[in-house]
């Protein structure tokens, strides 16, 4: 492997890792607070992409506006899911899990009659190629990195510098104690659902012009997101970031050197070895 190829592979790995991080952030946020694994995340990613398809691709709205619209609409959808599914079962983990799996299947099944059976595509938003250290990479892939950074920083500031973020952290540490201190647990949970869904939507909206769209498009990113949050530690935002970057590099460099299957296998071997020595993942803690 030449140095140029390695460098190109690392840059692609960084871009891949950024997409993984975006997917994993919302998932880990919701797990950290409510200890639920949101199986709807992949379906919400798909819906975010389809908002871009219709808003930007079909109706000609500016991409940026449609991007925020996707986050807003699906953030509201997160609120609705919290109100209609999570809250009625009083946060029961198993019942919520089953209901979210059912919701995912429902959304994906409805996707075909609503969006059509053929793959859809969205026109390129960021045209052209850039050279980084002599290595060519497309503008649209490069844009993933700053957008991921902005969203990660935004989430960090939201969680650490706002009253709502403090309430989220309080619930994550001890839900009952937080409630006794006057934290509106339902509202904060709804906000976590909203933010988690909005992040999944952002990820889908960002990927829409790069990949093709179909109702099942969220399944593979969801699998990657699961790997990342296990790797980084369930519920840990820094873990999701580091996990995403590591997996992005494994997927890119190993696949370039050895092929796709060894890369897929190695990511699991890496996780198994890590969990043997650190069962909570890189930054996780006992639940």
């Amino acid at each position: 492997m030449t140095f140029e190829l390695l460098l190109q592979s690392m840059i692609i790995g960084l871009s891949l890792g950024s997409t993984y991080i975006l997917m994993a952030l919302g998932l880990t946020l919701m797990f950290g607070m409510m200890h639920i694994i949101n199986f709807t995340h992949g379906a919400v990613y798909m819906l975010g992409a389809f908002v871009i398809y219709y808003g930007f691709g079909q109706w000609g709205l500016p991409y940026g506006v449609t991007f925020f619209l996707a986050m807003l609409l699906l953030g509201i959808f997160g609120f609705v899911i919290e109100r209609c599914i999570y809250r009625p079962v009083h946060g029961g983990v198993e019942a919520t899990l089953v209901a979210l799996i059912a919701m995912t299947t429902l959304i994906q099944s409805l996707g075909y009659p609503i969006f059509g059976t053929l793959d859809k595509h969205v026109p390129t938003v960021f045209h052209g190629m850039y050279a980084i250290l002599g290595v060519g990479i497309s503008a649209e892939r490069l844009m993933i990195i700053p957008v991921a950074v902005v969203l990660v920083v935004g989430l960090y500031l939201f969680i650490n510098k706002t009253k709502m973020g403090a309430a989220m952290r309080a619930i994550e540490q001890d839900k009952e104690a937080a409630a006794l201190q006057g934290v509106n647990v339902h509202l904060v949970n709804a906000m976590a659902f909203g933010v988690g869904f909005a992040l999944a939507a952002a990820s889908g909206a960002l990927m829409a012009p790069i990949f093709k769209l179909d109702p099942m498009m969220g399944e593979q990113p969801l699998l990657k997101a699961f790997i990342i949050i296990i790797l980084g530690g369930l519920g840990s935002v820094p873990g999701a970031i580091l996990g995403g970057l590591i997996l992005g590099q494994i997927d890119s460099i190993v696949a370039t050197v050895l092929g796709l299957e060894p890369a897929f296998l190695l990511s699991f071997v890496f996780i198994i070895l890590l969990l043997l020595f650190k069962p909570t993942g890189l930054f996780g803690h006992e639940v």
Partner: protein
Amino acid sequence: MRQRYFAFLSLMLCTIVALSVGGPDRVQAADNVIKVGVSAPLSGPAAPWGIPHKQAMELVFEEVNSQGGLDIGGKKYKLEVVAYDHKYVIAEGVATVNRLIAKDDVKYLTILGGAVAKANEEAVNEAGVLVLPLAYAEGLVSPKNPLIFHSFPAPPETATFWKWVKEKHPEIQKLATISPNDDTGWWSIKVETQYTEKLGYTTVAKEFFERGLTDFNPILLRMLAQKPDIVSVNAAPAGSVGLIIKQARELGFKGRFIHIGQLDTSVVAGIAGKDHVEGMWVHGFVETPLPEAVKSWKERYTKKYGEWNATSIDFANPAFAFIAGIKKAQSLDPKKIAQALQSVEFENLWGKARFGGKDFYGTNNQIVYAMPFSEVKAGVATMIVQLPPPHN
């Protein structure tokens, strides 16, 4: 509250079950109706193959029905398509074929997708069902599958196009291949590379990907590092090929792409960008020039479905073959129809067609006819040559 929640959950699950089970697209069966099952990808990346196939079957049958139907042994029969979507997922392909045989009681089938057809090989043999697949898989056309009649030119036939490439474009010497990681991909690439290497081409990379993959960058980076002159995307569906071409161009690949299977280049251009697909060679997809029979088909197809799809031209083959076979056999028995198919000559949309290939497959169960090959010129799949099959 809890009761209300469970009522809501039950309702939702019922809806999901209803949606996922779905129902075939068909009319009420009757005694004088011949049902032909279609198990094809009607959604997902391979839907650009499955949808025109189903529509082509329906159109051919509708035209026969409008003329009074088929006269078999002095009795008139109407033809009916019973179609299910397998999404190019093998498990769903097995389930749809089981359902067609056990529940819908069909005796004649088409299966689109090599991996799916291969997975159903034993089941259809045991059930004694006649199958006219559009599917690439090793051993599918073989004396041990006497009721399987492959109804689309396969790599052993279409690879002959490489001779034309060798003659017309001697500057192309290094080939890289990227295909789905299943029976369809393995066999297609095996046949193609054996053929090209005999012609003197060097295969510099041979990659396989899981269906559903969207980010091909790492695999392309590895492949393009070998500096191929041409990339074969044989057996890959249009949705995947669109992404492969788009990402390969982003990585700086300037050479040609080739697909000797079948591919809707307009779908590919929609994803990859029109300019990126320019110069691509494909088999079985022609937008221009169209012979009179195809022009007429185009008009009828567009009138019925509102939109033209050139994939339907070759994917109507199973319907034409089935009608020819059953007419000659004058029987509803799949075995008698199979016997008739081995010797009947019929018209498809490109002209005369028949089942042959005994010298290669050991049985006359492979459709043979003059195969059309196109080059994408100014965004349009333009026929450049029609080649006879390399075996009888």
